[in-house]
Structure formats: C-alpha cells, structure tokens
C-alpha cells in the first residue's frame, strides 16, 4: 500500500518547472509541474550520465536533461527515442492544491 506524504503546495512548484525532494536514502526525487498543472515525479537522475533532471526545461510531458539534452518522458520515465534508457518514477497526486508523493 502506498504511503502518501504531503510534499508542498501545488503553487510551490512553478508551472513548467520543478522542485527537488531530498530523501535520507535512495537519492533525490524531482517533482515536475507542467502547463496543464499535471504533476509528475521521477528519480532525479538522468539515465544517460546521471544529470539532475529537476534542473531541466519542462515542455509538454517531457523534461530535457540540462547536461546533454536527453528528453525523458515525465509519465513513464523513458528516454525519448532514439535514445534508450529509463528512470524510475513515483506516484504523485494533487488534492486541494496540495501535492502528495507515494514513498
């Protein structure tokens, strides 16, 4: 069963932007918000060379890694073809303007 944790308010994440959630173990998680106010969560580590995806440019349902420009799908954590790789994703939900993460 998922354990939903309150992370922040939706408005604490800029549209087409992200925030970093630091965990004690297991590495950082990047939480993204797109223009439609959909929220996504991925391990903050590009499958290419471990770049911090949270620092990338968000567009549509994708983020572009700031280090070498790989595009990663926000919904599934998969690299956009022709690149190949994947990054683990986390369940996230928005209720009453608050963002919850399943950890």
């Amino acid at each position, binding site marked *: 069963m998922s354990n939903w*944790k309150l*992370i*922040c308010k939706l408005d*604490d994440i*800029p*549209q*087409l*932007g992200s*925030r*970093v*959630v*630091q*965990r*004690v*173990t297991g590495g*950082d*998680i990047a*939480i993204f918000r*797109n*223009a*439609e106010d959909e929220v996504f969560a991925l391990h903050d580590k590009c499958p290419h*060379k471990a*770049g*911090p995806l949270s*620092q*990338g*440019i*968000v*567009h*549509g349902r*994708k983020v*572009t890694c*700031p*280090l*070498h*420009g790989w*595009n990663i799908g926000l919904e599934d954590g998969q690299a956009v073809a*022709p690149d190949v790789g994947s990054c683990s994703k986390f369940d996230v939900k928005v209720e009453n303007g608050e963002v919850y*993460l399943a*950890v």
Partner: protein
Amino acid sequence: MSNPPVKPRLVLIGNGMAGVRTVEELLKIKPDHYDITIFGAEPHPNYNRILLSPVLAGEMTIQEIVLNELDWYKENNIKLHTGKQIKTIDRVKRKVIAEDGTEEDYDRLLIATGSTPFMLPIPGNDLPGVIGYRDIKDTDEMIEAARLHKHAVVIGGGLLGLEAANGLKLRGMDVTVVHLGPWLLERQLDEIAGKMLQKSLEDKGLKFLLETQTEALIQGESGRVAAIRFKGGMQIPADLVVMAAGIRPNYSLAESSGIYCNRGIVVNDTMQTYDPKVYAVGECVSHRGIAYGLVAPLFEQAKVAANHLAGYGIGRYTGSVTSTKLKVTGIDLFSAGEYMGGKDTEEIVLNDPHGGVYKKLVIKDNKLVGGVMYGDTADGPWYFQLLKDKRDIHDIRDSLIFGQSLVGDVGHAGKSKAAEMADNAEVCGCNGVTKGAIVQAIKAKGLFTLDEVKKHTKAASSCGSCAGLVEQILASTIGGAYTPAALDTKPMCACTDHSHKVVREAIVAKNLTSKEAVFAEMQWKTPNGCDKCRPAVNYYLISSHPHAAKDDPQSRFINERAHANIQKDGTYSVVPRMWGGLTTPDELRAIADAAEKYKVPTVKVTGGQRIDLLGVKKEDLPAMWADLNAAGMVSGHAYGKSIRTVKTCVGAEHCRFGTQKSMTMGIKLEKMLFDMYSPHKVKLAVSGCPRNCAEAGIKDVGVIGVDSGYELYIGGNGGIKTEVAQFLCKVTSDEEVMEYSGAFLQLYREEGWYLERTCHYMERVGLDYIKGKILEDEEGRKAYYFRLLDSLKDAKDPWATSREEQPIKQFIPIKLEA
C-alpha cells in the same frame, strides 16, 4: 454503447519514397488523425530507390535499402496492399479500385505514382533483355543478365545511365554507353567537367559513343536482344540494353479520372490537385511547370503535403534548387544551380587537369547561382548552402574558389575532408562518433538530414563544430538526395515549420510580447514548445520588446535560471564579476572567505580574467551571493548567453609600451554592457597597444589601442572554430569606442538568431552589410546605440534580485523525513 469516432480515411497510391515520406511526416505531426491505406504496385515495402545503384554495384543489398519494414506499417495501423496496381479513381464515390478488384474508400487521396523510364520508340524496344532502370525488378534483371551474358549497352549518359553502366561493369560485363549529347551529364556538367568524367570512366573500362543516335534493337536467335544498330549503320553486340534516356511522370491514372494534368499532375503550392480532396507528391507531379526527378525536392513536397493533410495549413512549396552528385565510387562530382553560366553571369574557374581537379563557380550580382566541381567536391555542400541562402559573396570572393577555410577547426585533428577519412576516424570529438558509425546509421536507418544524423548518432549534437563534416559525409553517402535547408527557411525545431527569421519578424511586426502569444499566432505544433525553441522565443521577446515583454525563467536554460553554471555532478560554479579583470584585496578576501565558508572544493582563475568557485551546492547559492554582494561584487554572467567579460591588458596606466588606457576603457565597456543578454555569449577585449596582450583578435568585439586612438575589430572567436576578428574601423575617443561597439552589438542582438555567435552572424550577413549599418549610416548607428542603452537602462544584478523574488524557492530543497 457508443462507437469510437470515425476517423477520416486517407488513401495513398504509390508505396514509394515521396508518398511514404508524406505519411511519415503526417504521423509525426498528427498521429492517429487518419485511417491510412497504402497501395503499392511493387511487391516490396518502401525502399530507398536512390540506393539501387550501390545494390547493382554490389556495394549494398536489397535488405539494406528498405526504408520501412512491414512492421512499421503494422505499428502505425496502416493497411498495406502490395503488388496491387490501381486501375480507377472514382472521384464521385471517392474510392479507388485496383486491378484485382480491391476497393478502398477515401476522404483524402494522395497520389504518388512516381515515374517510368522513357523507352525509346524504336523497333525492338520490347524485346526480352531490353529494360528501363527504375526498381528492384530491373536491378535483379541486370544482376541476372550480368551473370549470363557479356555485352551490355546503356542508352543515356545521364546520372542513372552512368550509375547503371558502372554497376554492370563491376559485375563483369563489357559496357558501352550510348549518348545523344555532346558530353556526358550535359544537364549537370559543363563540357570540361563532362570530358574529365568521361576520361575517368574510360579508365575504369567503360566505353562511350557520344553524339550517337540509336536506330533499332535487333533480335537474336534465342529471341532475346542481340545487337544494337545506330544511325549511319554501325552495329555492336548487346545482350542487355538498359534505357536510361529520361523518365516520364506517371500521371495517366490521375488524368483518366479527370484530374488536370499537363506533363504531370498539376498541383499548387500546397500540393493540391484541381480536386481539393486529392493531393499529389513526387515525380508524378508538375509544380509551376517543373517535374522533379531528384529525391530532395520530393521530401520538401512531402513536408508541405503532410502539413496540409493534417489540417494545419502552414507551409508552401515554392520549388527547389537541386544539386547532383554521382554515386560512382571513386568519382567525385558535384553540380548545382545554373552551372553553365550565361551572358549576365561571371565565372571563377580553377582548372588543374593533371591533378584531376576542376571547379567552376557561376556568380550573378555578387551571389553564387551555380557551380560544378570535379575531383574535389568537399566544399560542395558549403557552396550549395551559400547558393540557397543567396548570400552576398562580395567580401569572400577572392578566396571563394578555394572552399570553406577550415583552418583552425579544432577537435578533429585538422581533418576536414570527409572523403579522405578512414571509417574509424573520429568525426565528433565530443561524443566519440566515428565516420563509419555515421555512414552505417545513414544507410541502416535511412537518414536524410543533419538533424536526423544528430539524433541517431549524437554526432554534431554537442558543440556542433563537426556539423560541416557530418554534412559532407551525408552528402557523399546519399548523393543528390541531400539538400541542406536554406538557413532563413529552416524550421527552428520540430515544434514549428517557421524559421528563426520568420518567428523573430513576427514578434516585432505583430508586437507579440509573450510566448503564449507567439505559439498561438504562429500555430505551434506543441503546447509549450521544447528546450530548443522556448529559450529562443524568450530571447527574441525580451530583446525585441525590452521593457514590455516579461522574461520567463522557465524558458531559460538552468544556468540562466540559477545564475550559475551547472557542472557534471549537479553542483554549480560561481564567478563574481571583476570589471575589466581588475580586483582589490577586499574582494579577494571576500572570495576567499566565501570559498571557505561554503566548502568550495576548487578555486580556479578563468580565461576571462576572473575567479571561478567550482562545486557549490545549489542550496548554498543565495547565501553565497549575499556574502559576495555585501563585499560589493555582482554576478559575472559566466553562465549566460550574455555579456561575459571584457579582458584587458595593463595598458598605458603602467605598461612602458602602452598607448591607451586599456583597463579604463575595458571597465567602461563592461559597465555599459552589464546584464546584456544576446543570441549567444559575447566576449570583448581591450589591448593598450598593437602587441595585443589581451588577445582582442579572437573576441566578438576587440579593441586595440594605437597612438592616435583605437582600432575596432568584430566577429572574432577563440572557441570551437578559431576566427580572426575583422577590422571594422578606427576611432579616436573612448566615447566612439562605446558608440560603435555598442551599435554593432545591438545590431547583432536584433538580427542574430538564437545560439548564433557574432562570427556566424557575420558569415551569414557579410561584413559589408554590417559596415553599411554601422559606418555609413551615422543616424542608424546612433539609433542602435540608443536602443542598446535604453534596453539596459534598468539592468540589475541577478544575484541580488533572485534572492528577493519568488524564484528563490527553486534553491530550497524539500526535505523528506525517513
């Protein structure tokens, strides 16, 4: 229960390169819009017809030239009928009927029936052993003939004929090429190059009969063709006759259904026929009276047709300039445009018959309009780009014939000629991609553009310095199929069909002040752009409307959002500004304190005369900036597409050779330009005398003090491609240095495309153009200078503002308890 909405039906007649390319473009921009059905007369999936010649020559296999495997049709839910020729188009009932009775209804019809070889109307043209050269079947037949027979005759000394002849020769046949014209490839080459080509082909063992007309083909005892007779009575043996005397557009199907045809299916600039539900692309089409037989124009047509089929209605096809490359291994030949020249053109010729090199460039009104190259075609793509861009070549005319100077091109050991490179030679030094890997990807994946090669191989996708080399490899691998897009019409990215030029002009002309307005007005295909177009659009907005358009941080690359440089481990580097490269004990003390307080692992002196603190955690940035601000320091913008530094030498203040006070001048310039964003980074230098210790010759703006004033140089670059700055003018006062260099930088800010350095901007528009704007038009210059000062009038230190405003949240991580 409700049924899913019924999709409109698109039927494509012709499973070849142009038609399928249109479908691919359509799927890219609007997948799932249509139910798609494709009819192909051949029993194969779509293959790369232009690579039939390498197949015939034994250099590739049929499997290698397939572009879309059967699985591709399945994955995209496309119904494919192979081996079925369409007999009737019923435009009233909107359906097509194949010869075997198969019927399909359509809402939109796309005709791409291609062309057929022209069979000379002479006796015996239907004998066994007499073929055209068009498809896999013909190729198989030639390969089979080469196994069983000896004598081959190819009628037609054009591209296709020569490639066929070369292939048959390599397969062991005795080959004669019969040609009506006075020299080979007379539609692509002038006489000198045509004769040089003939000589090299003769050296390979081919025989030629020029200015020779065929009269009849003679049947042998076996019933197969046995000989060919020419006008005048001469006769030679022929067990195989390949007709390569031209192609005829295949439009009889369209014509019989009542669609207007005139030597091809007549289409308008949106690739629509006279029946608005019916589109046509490819060799079967007549556009503005021209039927194209090369693949590059067909792809441009495909793009336009797809856009209109998708209902976006953007883009027009206005015709193509084509280039040619012969795909015969070991022969380098390139031609483009009006290669013959005429009475109002001039020619620059380099002729070295002994060395086997011939180049001719045809120039009209200071623009390149055509060219022929034989023996050394490395610069073909570059000339072709100049031609398509209609670049004024006046200022590079004296060295034009020698090609694009690649001197100083770093990162690939000075190798600049694709053809000479071994397969294991590294082309892209950033990503470690070899020539072999690029060629392999081009062939295996059917790549046609630089962007596709970038995506699949990563070559030229980082610093981009090898892009020219990759283009050469592309051109030499796929030959005439390669066409670089003209710079000012090349789409910004996959989100739009508009070029940088068009987007920027619209932002100014329509007074667009937000990215949303731009995306709506210009009908962007994606909801909010991508990492390529959004930063560009944001820059165009804030530079075109300095105080009206609001900067959008989320459209900026992370470095400009975090006001520091991201490093490979996700930490940042911080560079405080040191005006003109000068500092004080207090500043140094503050830097040292900050380095200790925030546990900075590396402190480095930069090339731009300042100090870099590397390895800072993002969450420490605001506090570190506060400390540095308190000591009077501001952001050095070492991270931005912006003013970086003004490097100076000691100058007349201390130096015994100094003629001008270079430090003071440098500080003045740096203060004037503080917080200036630009298409790409901008670096300046001021030297106090011609010894030029500040290395002003490789800066975007270089100032060199002389006894009587200052010399100004522009467009230098010390990075990827070393470019020596060009002399702009000489001025006498500090104020003039500021005005002239400020005006030039504003011109670049207003006209440069995003990520175009000053040297590239200058290469595009020409130094004369810039001189016209800055030197010859005093009022214009002052206006540029004024606009620069006006847009920078409330420049603020981003380190200070980012601590005060909302964006500070980005620096604070959210801590999750265990």
